[in-house]
């Protein structure tokens, strides 16, 4: 228990710091939100298809929007640490570096979920789709968690490079394919009104990938940020 308290204290300090700084600057959220809304609008006009066709692709549109907006947020969130040398400040602290990773990942997840919370009603109106399905909201939570878990780790690698803005998507998208595919399939299942037995395999896959990605990122973060 004695080791857990400093860990949780450091993790909560990182979350508090990220939320406080974002509340002031609104840099991450506003960039993600504007981007997400623009993508939805562009798809809305570009895919002027039959309603039944549109229903089939809307889960893909939703996850492309969330994934791209999430990448923007992940890049910005780690760039803030790098720009003023704050990453060194974090690494100098005598805490378990996994606590730093979990703090950053949790704050990034909150940013992504906040964007999803604002985007979903707009998406529902434009695509004439009811998104207030509890199971679907759980899929969005799990999909975002998996995406952010691996994205936070890879953004801490990419931020060291001069070409960090283009490096993160190149690293992240291939690794995040299992999470995005299972999230798209599970979302599509809920939107099409399929039964639990048809959605359950994708749902389970999503949970398994979340556990694997989060555990691996938790364990290797220290090595990744080491020189």
């Amino acid at each position, binding site marked *: 228990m004695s080791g857990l308290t400093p860990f949780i*204290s450091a993790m909560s300090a990182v979350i*508090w*710091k990220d939320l*406080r700084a974002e509340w*002031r600057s609104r840099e991450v959220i506003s960039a993600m939100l504007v981007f997400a809304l623009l993508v939805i609008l562009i798809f809305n006009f570009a895919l002027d298809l039959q309603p039944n066709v549109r229903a089939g692709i809307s889960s893909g549109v939703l996850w492309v929007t969330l994934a791209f907006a999430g990448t923007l947020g992940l890049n910005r969130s780690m760039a803030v640490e790098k720009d003023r040398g*704050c990453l*060194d*400040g974090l690494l100098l602290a005598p805490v378990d570096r996994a606590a730093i990773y979990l703090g950053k990942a949790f704050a990034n997840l909150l940013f992504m979920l906040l964007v999803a919370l604002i985007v979903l009603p707009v998406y529902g109106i434009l695509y004439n789709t009811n998104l207030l399905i509890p199971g679907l909201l759980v899929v969005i939570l799990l999909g975002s968690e998996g995406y952010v878990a691996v994205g936070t780790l890879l953004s801490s690698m990419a931020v060291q490079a001069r070409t960090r803005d283009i490096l993160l998507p190149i690293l992240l998208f291939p690794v995040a394919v299992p999470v995005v595919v299972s999230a798209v399939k599970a979302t599509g299942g809920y939107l099409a009104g399929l039964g639990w037995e048809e959605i359950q395999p994708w749902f389970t896959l999503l949970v398994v990938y979340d556990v694997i990605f989060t555990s691996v990122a938790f364990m290797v973060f220290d090595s990744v940020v080491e*020189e």
Partner: protein
Amino acid sequence: MSSLIEVRSLVKRFGAKIVLRQLNFHVETGEFVALLGPNGAGKTTFLRILASLARPSLGEVWVAGFRLPQQAAHVRRRLGVVSHQPLLYGDLSAEENLRFYGRMYAVKDLEARIHEVLELVGLVARRRDLVRTFSRGMQQRLAIGRAILHDPDVLLLDEPHTGLDQDACDMLDGVLRQIAGQGRTVVMTSHDLARVEDLASRFDVLTGGRITASQPADGLPRDGLLAFYRQALESQRSLQGATR
């Protein structure tokens, strides 16, 4: 291990490039060591190794009785680091920055300590202002406050005067003098002798990846110090010329 910092035969390589070559160095408790050297001598790399932010390629590094990098967590608790960059968040206020770092270092009685540190660096009146509104000099003073918040045994300063105007340098020197007066152990790098001559108790010269000269400050006149530094640089240049 009697010295607070003990470095033996330290080598640091980046690929084929050797930055530090068999470097030996030691610092006793309470010393203020000025590490002088031209740009590119390896000062920042050396300080990053002492700060546990970089790994030695070869050699032994001990800080406060703990070996790096194996016991890095113990060393970090005993170190305060100030670098070229302030390591502060622009969108947090001065006291919020200190509160954040205080929680990371588990500082006891944090609010009282934050006030004490802000008084020391002369920023009590600006404690609620965002750091991004601070001048470079104020940011650097707050960076020193951040570095001493957890009352470290050793303070590592990497050219803290970089980018400061004369007034800001004078204010920073005042803060550094107070810190040195508290008996804290300090290692400060600089390429400018004038910046450290009144502060340090010992001058070491780092050139070509090695400590090439060392001189206590006691009773040394300014002219003597200048001559010592020039001689150290000259001997290194002639050595490099001979090996080419």
